[in-house]
């Protein structure tokens, strides 16, 4: 067993212990789980909606839903897979609702490069034209992502942006790895067309 696999197994056991404790009423155990996964869940939500405030709100809702339903967790998959499944369903439902109430539609927010509290550390030093180009690139990527359906967007966000492997994604969205790959290929083809100017 590789180091990576043994770490995964140890993580899974730890998570199960924390879930059991939460089910017995230990809220701090749930707090541990939240601290461990809040970054990943926030990232997923942000990747799907492209708006930091909405991503924060969604992350809170996802963990709240997870807490409410924690007694339904059957210990058959890893907690992480189950949590991601809840997260994805919550995000997709929210996006559907927003699409139905057109006037409430959430526009991806392209962040100002300077002075944003959400700015990644590696971009903090960028100034002038370079920063502007970055901003335009981010805007175009977000717009290109918005042209995809939720199911295609979800696999791109999880695999190409978050780096989740195919088999884990298959577990999260309950389909085969082949389906994940085919969705990914389709979505990438669309993105390549949309972002052609940036790929010169």
């Amino acid at each position, binding site marked *: 067993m590789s180091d990576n696999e043994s770490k995964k197994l140890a993580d899974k056991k730890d998570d199960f212990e924390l879930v059991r404790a939460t089910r017995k009423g230990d809220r701090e155990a749930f707090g541990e789980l*939240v601290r461990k996964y809040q970054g990943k869940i*926030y*990232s997923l939500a942000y990747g799907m909606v492209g708006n930091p405030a909405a991503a924060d709100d969604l992350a809170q809702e996802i963990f709240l839903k997870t807490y409410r339903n924690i007694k339904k967790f059957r210990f058959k998959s890893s907690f992480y897979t189950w949590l991601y499944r809840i997260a994805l369903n919550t995000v997709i439902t929210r996006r559907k609702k927003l699409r139905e109430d057109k006037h409430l539609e959430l526009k991806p927010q392209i*962040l100002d490069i300077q002075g944003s509290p959400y700015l*990644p550390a590696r971009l903090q030093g960028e100034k002038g034209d370079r920063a502007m180009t970055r901003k335009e690139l981010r805007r175009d990527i977000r717009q290109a992502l918005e042209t995809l359906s939720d199911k295609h967007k979800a696999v791109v966000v999880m695999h*190409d942006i978050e780096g989740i492997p195919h088999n884990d994604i298959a577990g999260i969205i309950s389909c085969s790895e082949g389906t994940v790959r085919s969705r990914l290929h389709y979505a990438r083809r669309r*993105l390549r067309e949309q972002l052609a100017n940036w*790929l010169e």
Partner: protein
Amino acid sequence: MLCKQFKKNVWDFLDGRLAGRPADLYSAHLKDCPRCRDTLARARRLLELLKDESVPLPPAAYRDSFWPRLRERISAEGRPARPRFVLRFNPLSYAAIGAAAAALVLWISLRESPSPFFRPMEGRRAGRPANFAMAIAGPTAGKDAPEVDYISGRSGSVGGRERAGTDYILPGATGSCGGRFEV
């Protein structure tokens, strides 16, 4: 290898899913084909752009406040709810439910609707008695006398005489029947 095949497998190649001979063919084709080299470069660039599109992480203060805010909401709700009974997909349980539903439908149809063997003559249904007594107006004998249908070929006894199938009976006859009957 054709350029078309190359294009089709470009993502598998970049995901490191091509190994052995297909990977060798791929590399060989790349050496000779500038168009496919360009295709690969664009695909690779796209993946790099997406990787760079990693999420801007909120500051530490914000991250630290995430759980306290959530804990407040959880405290307002109380303990997690008990799981409700949810029927999960299980072929056996669906088969059992199907069989039970079919049995229920059959039972209701036998109970409510007249049997195809019944031939009501005066619209009077005798129900499902084990014993019966009838007082029928009208002709009392011969072809015009009311007839009773011992349904489904079950036998019955009328006036102490064993009968089966459809038969004529006399008014005021008494007897017993194995199943339902109609006059």
